[in-house]
């Protein structure tokens, strides 16, 4: 294979994050007639993850009434009945409207039936603050999903992750929630040839002074922060926790043992956040390697405010990540 060919080799022509989700769905729909898409305005796809699908699959892309409990519940039933439904609830904050169907039904059916029922359902929603959508459209409820159990959760921060994790989600036998950040929808990047599976993390860049375990938009900001930190002589390693369930513990512990200093950055609320879980896990399993207490950086325990100046204040920024990393390494 020539260098030129290798440079363009990609399983997807999508070069932005939300279109990479859509392309992965399209490819699965071509390969598997059981894959079907429904949800809120999926033919228009305001947030992008199903944009364009209706043109190729007019009979398998259905707009729903704004009835999250009803159409997510129908997704549960359709999954049990043999389909591979991909259900878009638009904003993951709307999961609160259909929590019974997500948690008590999708997340419990396998267990309650002694393993005899599978729910291969995918639910997609945005997660995170962007453009002043305020308290009821901006939250990152990932910690609630992890605590509820029975649900797989991924939160890609690059087109590559978005493509491969969407593909893995649709092929999984468990219910999977795909979170995607509205501020990352247009993020550019190539979909590479190396597949990602549920439970994978991506470590990039590697470093030796401090580990930054970060999720979603925070991973993107952590990578930018690592570049700035490098210019200051601090070698930061970023563990992009793009799969939250399964949690990529090996990558997290490996980095923690390597650097001995860990900053966890999460756009969820601090109390009982995914950052808290990661910090606790490191404390239990890699304590001996730590040179400093694990530091959490997350949204303070307030709803996401409206005013741009307030929204920016509560969400961890590149600057706050740099500051926290610097204090952790004692710089």
């Amino acid at each position, binding site marked *: 294979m020539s260098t030129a060919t290798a440079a363009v080799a990609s399983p997807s022509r999508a070069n932005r994050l939300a279109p990479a989700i859509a392309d992965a769905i399209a490819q699965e729909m071509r390969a598997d007639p*059981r894959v*079907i898409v429904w949800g809120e305005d999926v033919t228009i796809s305001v947030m992008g993850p199903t944009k364009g699908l209706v043109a190729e699959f007019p009979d398998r892309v*259905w707009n*729903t*009434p704004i*009835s999250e*409990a*009803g*159409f*997510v*519940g*129908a*997704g*549960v*039933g*359709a*999954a*049990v*009945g*043999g*389909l591979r*439904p991909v259900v878009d609830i638009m904003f993951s904050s709307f999961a609160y409207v259909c929590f*019974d*169907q997500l948690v*008590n*039904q999708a997340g419990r*059916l*396998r*267990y*309650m*039936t*002694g*393993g*005899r*029922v*599978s729910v291969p359902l995918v639910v997609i929603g945005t997660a995170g603050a962007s453009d002043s959508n305020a308290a009821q459209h901006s939250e990152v409820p990932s910690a609630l999903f992890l605590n509820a*159990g*029975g649900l*797989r959760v991924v939160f890609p921060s690059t087109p590559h992750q978005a493509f491969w994790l969407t593909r893995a989600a649709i092929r*999984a*036998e*468990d219910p999977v929630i795909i979170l995607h950040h509205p501020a990352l929808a247009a993020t550019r990047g190539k979909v590479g040839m190396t597949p990602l599976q549920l439970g994978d993390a991506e470590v990039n860049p590697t470093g030796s002074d401090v580990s930054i375990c970060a999720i979603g938009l925070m991973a993107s900001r952590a990578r930018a922060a690592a570049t700035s930190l490098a210019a200051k002589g601090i070698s930061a390693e970023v563990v992009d926790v793009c799969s939250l369930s399964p949690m990529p513990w090996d990558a997290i512990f490996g980095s923690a043992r390597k650097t001995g200093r860990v900053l966890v950055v999460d756009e969820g609320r601090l109390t009982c956040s995914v950052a808290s879980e990661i910090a606790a896990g490191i404390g239990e399993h890699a304590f001996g390697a730590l040179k400093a207490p694990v530091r959490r950086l997350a949204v303070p325990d307030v709803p996401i405010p409206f005013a741009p100046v307030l929204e920016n204040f509560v969400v961890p920024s590149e600057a706050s990540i740099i500051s926290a990393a610097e204090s952790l390494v004692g710089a």
Partner: protein
Amino acid sequence: MSAGKGPTATAERRSGSDQSLLTERGAAFMRSMVRIRLFEETLAELFAKGGLAGVVHLSIGEEASAVGVCSALEPGDQITSTHRGHHHMLARGLEPEGMFAEILGKATGYSRGKGGSMHVAAIHLGAVGANGIVGGGVPIAVGLGIAARQGGTDRVAVGFFGDGGANQGVVHESLNLAAVWTVPVVFVCENNGYAEFTPTQSVTSGPGIARRAEGYGLPGIAVDGTDVTAVYNAAAEAVHRARTGQGATLIECRMQRWRGHHEGEEVYAGVYREPAIMGPDVAQDPIDRLEQALLDAGIDGVALRAQLRSEEAAVIVSALAAAQAAPLPEVESALQDVFA
């Protein structure tokens, strides 16, 4: 009872007019209803003796709705059920032994002892599951119907719920979704007069639950839920509509709940129901009604009932003994089956 007068409600049917149905299916109806009654009475005795963990919601007095509906189904059709769902499961063909074993928390139970009374399921028999959340299984039935149609089959899904579930938002969302997508699903509301401990009529607006179907452009049928032939006829009509691509139907089966919301409730609930509507003295007994209908049709319903009762009693005794002798689950199994 009074059926609604709207265009989508049907008049109550009389069992005496269904001679051919009774000739063809009367014995099967009787066997299934007697089996359910004996199964539930056995559970009541076990509970009273302290032999059951957890909560059991018995379906005594409601046998006809389960048997009438499930008798109108074919292999491959699927049902979702409720917290009060033993009668649905038995009518769908689940074996008493596996049911007892599940309710006793045994490894041989249909859900390996992880579900219990409220979460019995046997997907290979088309019983996708009972459900502890009121109304929770109804959208799942809609999804099963969608999957049946998209898969190119003529399978039908049935979503059972109660009068309590009729007031859940997700049930209304399901009716709307099934209507706009013409889903092959039958919604069956068992209106037994009490939503847990609250009289249904005190918390339920409008002229009847069946009439709510009109608001979604669906046919709604109110039937006497103690008349198995009336239920069967309504269900057969609804299943035919679903199977032939004509979409969903709502059936309201009206009956009375003989037992409490759950066994053992008297320790805290006291008397919350009018004695006049409790129990077989005044409520219509669906088995008595079938016996009489058989007699009216020239069939010896008394002898048939006695014979089937004897046969089914032996089945129940044997099933319970086998379930009681079955092993407990390995405790480590509590950590399995969360994910694939």
